[in-house]
Every structure is written in structure tokens, then in C-alpha cells.
């Protein structure tokens, strides 16, 4: 195992992807649940598109950011739980006895998250288009959507890795799921911030970085190319990635020490 870091990372990323692919229940829930909630929201809240000042022609277009963000969350929890399982099962400790660097396990896991994010992004865009979602920014916009979604998945994945490395417990990682879920719903995911009536909710949505990720993706669907919103979305995603990966690296050092 005297291979270079990229080879080690590639091997562990492949392991991460294969482990996900071999669990059909994980793949199905990662694809099915976000689309199901999207569909329920889109048809359940369609009437909201009649509100004065609503920024999209249909709620279907407006809500399309929802499955993309939710899918990133699912991917992060799954990957974090897998990493925690590796710690619980002793795989991580055995890995430390080999010349393979522990950081490759972390990077491999994040590689797996990116692969799952890519699959989810492509599938959701395909299904969304079939359902009638009109992506105003066109084909290039779709590519940017997938890229931003993968960045978001990487950021959430880093947070999942911190939880896994700090606790070493699958249960602890999975119990964080409701917190992520709360963070998604307490954002501008369901209505634009200017249409949120309750001041306290609008305040939370404004300080919640997820609002800006949502608005970045959404702008590509309902507006087209809105440089400012998109730049804020990417900046937020990049900041989450940097903070989460730094935290994950520090947690890894503590775990290895």
C-alpha cells in the first residue's frame, strides 16, 4: 500500500460509491424522498404563486431548489453515517496500521458524496424537466445548478464528517438529521423572504445561510442569470465547504492522535 495520496483517495472514493450503490434502499431514499416532497410541495402550494409579488410563474419552478438541497442533506447524513460505521467497526483503526493515510478515508468519503451529488443532480433535473420545470438559464444553467449542488453536498458532507469523527457513532450522526431538516425549513425554501409575513421567521431566514444557497439555485431556474444572487449563493457554499472541511480535518487529527 505504498501508493500516492490520489491513488489512495481514488480507492476509498470507489469503496464509498460502491457501498452506497450496493444499498438500493439508500439510493432509492436519496432519490425518491426529495422528489416526493418536492412534488407534494409543488402541487400543495401551487396557489401561493397567485400571491402579489410572487417571483415565479408557477410554484413548481419556485420549489425546484427544494429536492436539490434536501438531497445534499441526505447524502451528507448517509456518508457521515458510513464514516461513523467505519470507526465503530474498527476499519478506521485497521487503516491506521497500514501505510494508507487516514486523510484519504475522509477525502474518499467526500469523493463519494460528490459522485452521489452528481447522480442526484442529473436525475432531479431530468425528472424536473419531465414534470414541467422551466430552467430559465438553459442547459448551461443546469450544469451550474449541478455544480452548486455538489458544492453544497460537499459542505454538508464535511459537517457529517465532523459529527462522525467527533462522536464515532452512527446513531449520533443520524440523530443530527432533524437539525439539518429544521435548518432547511427555517429558510426561504417555501416562500421568498419578502413574502414571509412573520418578522421572527424572516429574521431567521435572513441569517440562515441555507436561504442563500436556495436562492442561488432558484435564481437559475426562475430568473435566468442573476449574477449577484448567484455570487452570494456560491460564496455561501464555498464558506460552508471551507469551514466544514477545516473542522473535519481538525476532527480527523484529534481522532488519529
Amino acid at each position, binding site marked *: 500500500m505504498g501508493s500516492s495520496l490520489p491513488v489512495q483517495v481514488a480507492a476509498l472514493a470507489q469503496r464509498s460509491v460502491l457501498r452506497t450503490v450496493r444499498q438500493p434502499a439508500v439510493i432509492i431514499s436519496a432519490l425518491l424522498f426529495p422528489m416526493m416532497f418536492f412534488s407534494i410541495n409543488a402541487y400543495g402550494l*401551487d396557489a*401561493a404563486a397567485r400571491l402579489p409579488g410572487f417571483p415565479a410563474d408557477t410554484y413548481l419552478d419556485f420549489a425546484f431548489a427544494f429536492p436539490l438541497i434536501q438531497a445534499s442533506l441526505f447524502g451528507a447524513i448517509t456518508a457521515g453515517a458510513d464514516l461513523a460505521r467505519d470507526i465503530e467497526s474498527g476499519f478506521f483503526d485497521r487503516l491506521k496500521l497500514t501505510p494508507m493515510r487516514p486523510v484519504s478515508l475522509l477525502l474518499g468519503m467526500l469523493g463519494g458524496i460528490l459522485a452521489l451529488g452528481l447522480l442526484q443532480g442529473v436525475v432531479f433535473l431530468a425528472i424536473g424537466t419531465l414534470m414541467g420545470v422551466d430552467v430559465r438559464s438553459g442547459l448551461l444553467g443546469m450544469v451550474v445548478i449541478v455544480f452548486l449542488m455538489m458544492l453544497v453536498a460537499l459542505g454538508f458532507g464535511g459537517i457529517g464528517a465532523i459529527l462522525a469523527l467527533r462522536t464515532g457513532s452512527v446513531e449520533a450522526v443520524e440523530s443530527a438529521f432533524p437539525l439539518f431538516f429544521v435548518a432547511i425549513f427555517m429558510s426561504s425554501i417555501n416562500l421568498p423572504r419578502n413574502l414571509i409575513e412573520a418578522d421572527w421567521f424572516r429574521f431567521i431566514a435572513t441569517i440562515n445561510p441555507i436561504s442563500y444557497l436556495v436562492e442561488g439555485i432558484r435564481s437559475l431556474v426562475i430568473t435566468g442569470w442573476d449574477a449577484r444572487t448567484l455570487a452570494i449563493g456560491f460564496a455561501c457554499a464555498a464558506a460552508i465547504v471551507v469551514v466544514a472541511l477545516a473542522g473535519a480535518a481538525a476532527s480527523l487529527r484529534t481522532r488519529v492522535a
Partner: protein
Amino acid sequence: MGGFFWVAGAVAGRQIYKYFANPAFLAPALFPLFFFVAFAGGLTRVGDVPGFDYAPGYIAFQYVWALLQAVAMGGAFTGFSIAGDFENGFARRLLLAAKNRSGIILGYTIASLVRVTVTGALVTVIALVVGIPISGGFDLFGLIGLAALVNVAATLFGAGVAMLLRTQQAGPVIRTPIFMVLFLAPVFVPLNLLQGWLQTIARLNPFTTVLDAARGFLAGEPTSALPAYGIGFALVLVFALWALYGLRRAERVGS
């Protein structure tokens, strides 16, 4: 152990003690509370949509759904407890000791009702703090009665699945159908404002009638109360038979 009611009382007593000895018994209220806060806080303007004609307002509209979700999830969580009792061996000893085993189901159901009295009250207190208007008067008892029926039906459904599968891995099998029934209904807006396939499914979903009636009770303008209670009692009857079937299977396997 004695007859039907004695067994039911013993099981209920143990289960209620277990609930109150562990703050986790409030868990079924967490998701409904979260959805209530998220929907009532974030979607209030939806109440201004043309055609939205629920007089008590959007927060009250969401409260009723949150309350019914809390009581239904309370039933589901009781199913998880039963599955846990099978895994840790308690249920096996219970089946050996109980003279009349049908009382076991009644015991768990009573305990579930006690649990949701607390979790339902918690949701209601938070809704009152947020400012829902109470305009139903005596009709509110109609809402409470429907909530109780929803809880009993969900508990019996969960009990049947738990006794049939006898493992905590039955969790998604209990939770997912309940979650689907709750969401494939007029959650955000009245039925007439839903669109596409969701409106079609919501029309066929019996829970829609129960939800409409419950909202009517809160508004003090009862609508389709009789069909809603009819559906409630029918679900209780069907799932009671289902739970008994699960119990008989568990007896046969001897778990």
C-alpha cells in the same frame, strides 16, 4: 395474570410509567411542532391567496394538521415501543403470563392515549402562545374526539405491524404509511386549492375528511362531522382486527 381488563391495566400502567420516566416520550411531538412552527411562521401569507376561506386564519389551519400529526405519530411511536418489547424479550414473557392476551393491545392503546394527551397539550399550548383564535366553543370536543380516534387507529396499525414483524427495524414500515397519509392531504391549503395529482389523491384520502372536519370544529363551523367520525370508527375497527391478527401471529411464532 388475570382477565382482559386486568391485563390491559397492567400493560397500560407499565407503559405509562415508562413514558413519564423518560423525557423521550415527548419525541412524537417534536416533528409536528417543528412543522407547525415552519409552516405557520413561514407560510402565513398563503392565507391571503384568493379562495383561502378558513376564517380562523392560517396559523389555526396549520395547528389542526400539527395536532393530528402529533397524535398519529404518538400511535406510531407506541408501535416502536411494542417492537422494542419484542426485541428485549419482555413481550415473550408477557405473552406467557397473560391469561387474556387481547388485553395487551388495549393496554398499549390506553397508554398511547395518555401519552398523546400530553404531547397534544404541548402542541396546543404552543399554538395558543403563537396566537391561534379559539372560536369553536363546545365544538372543540369534536376536535378532541377526532384526535383521539386518529391516535387509536394509528396505535392499532403500529401494534399490528410491530407484532407481525417483532423487530425495531419495523420502524419505517410503521412510520412511512402514516407519514404518507398525513402529507397526501390538504396540508398547506384547502382541498379546492390543491393542484394536479395531489388533489386527486387528497380527495380519495379518508384523512382529508377527518382533517376538514377537525378544522371545522376549531372554527366553530362543523362540516362533514358525521362522515369524519364514521371514517374514524371504521379505521379503529379495521386496525383493531389488524392488531389482533398481528397478536395471533406473534402467539403462533411464540416470540
